[in-house]
């Protein structure tokens, strides 16, 4: 009997906490389970906590990206939370920048992100250009 990663339901969201070292078959099983669960429950968001994941290779990195992409197709926002610095550096060095995957520092912030999807980053960049410190003071 193979280990499986538990998928918990929290209201509209699914919570996946990876607390063991990911190996390839486990990742494939998670991919199966999660997609099934999303379509069963009609969840709108998936939160994957990888704070205990300390070793990552290109396959696992790609699986994480795939799982997020699949969830997105099933209309569920995916947020990856709690990535370790070493894991982040490894993924970048492997050339896996996981575009399109949303990330957060911890579960709490990830949940907040799912509940009220953040304004797009670029809108901040544009908004900031229009006003300076003095303008905002005058509004007070």
């Amino acid at each position, binding site marked *: 009997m193979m280990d499986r990663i538990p998928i918990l339901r929290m209201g509209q969201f699914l919570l996946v906490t990876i607390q063991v070292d990911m190996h390839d078959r486990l990742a494939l099983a998670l991919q199966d389970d999660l997609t099934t669960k999303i379509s069963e429950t009609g969840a709108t968001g998936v939160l994957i906590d990888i704070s205990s994941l300390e070793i990552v290779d290109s396959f696992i990195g790609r699986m994480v990206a795939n799982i997020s992409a699949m969830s997105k197709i099933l209309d569920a926002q995916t947020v990856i939370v709690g990535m370790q610095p070493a*894991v*982040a*550096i490894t993924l*970048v060095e492997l050339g896996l920048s996981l575009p399109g995957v949303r990330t957060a520092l911890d579960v709490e*912030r990830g949940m907040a992100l799912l509940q009220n999807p953040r304004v797009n980053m670029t809108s901040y*960049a544009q908004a900031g250009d229009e006003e300076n410190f003095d303008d905002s*003071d005058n509004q007070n």
Partner: protein
Amino acid sequence: MNNDLKARIASLLEEQQEMLLSEWAQELQAQGRQQGAISDKDLKQQCKEFLTLFRDAVQGEEGGKGENLRNMLGNLARSRAENGFTPTETATFVFSFKKPLYTVLHKEFSKDSNTLIEVIWGVNQSLDRLGLYTTEVTQSAREEVIRRQQQDMLELSTPVVSLAEGILALPLIGTLDSARTQVVMESLLQTIVTTGSTVAIIDITGVPTVDTLVAQHLLKTVTAARLMGADCIISGIRPQIAQTIVHLGVELGNVITKATLASAFKIALDMQGMKISRVAPVGAMTSKA
């Protein structure tokens, strides 16, 4: 050289010690002023020590020959390198010993020119080796200093500072190479974890040039921070750098870039839902003081 000859040279060195030392001192003075500072007393002390050890080395067996002499010269070269002597000056210390020594040898062996040539050749060889050895030590001492400073620079030049709750700044100074990027990335990511910050401002005002490699390193850092759930803003982009980036065709992707740290900070505050406001009119606070 056979052992008899060696013993003869050794005893000669012993007999003529005073004469050798005074002529050597004159010779050293004749070399003119040196850049490095060393007192006459220390110099005399060093000459005497060298002569004693040189004699021991000439007398000694083949096996442990010159160990002490080499150690002494090594220490001497190292201390001179730290005091600003040039390698030439340090080597000259050894080479200038040749003239007085040859004078003495010439007097002693003048009747037998074959032996004289053999002796002078042998002595010449060992003195040359010793002189070159001091140069080698001087060089390695300097290289050690350079290595240490490089290490210091790596550690000192990558501070991660906290600007406000949840906002970090990373003022980069100097050129970004792979090794530095690694250190910068690690310290930034570690600080993101420990402080729980969600915005990091990378300020490149102090980065002299941005080429494709530097840009790639910057993007790597930004991507790694994003993977952890922190947004990055690149600030301090000077006009020339903006031009270079476009000319090189570097794609900064959807990274937010700002001209100054101040405007980047403003955006960062926006993201955190904070704002800076003036509590008194301009100049009111300074006129009170």
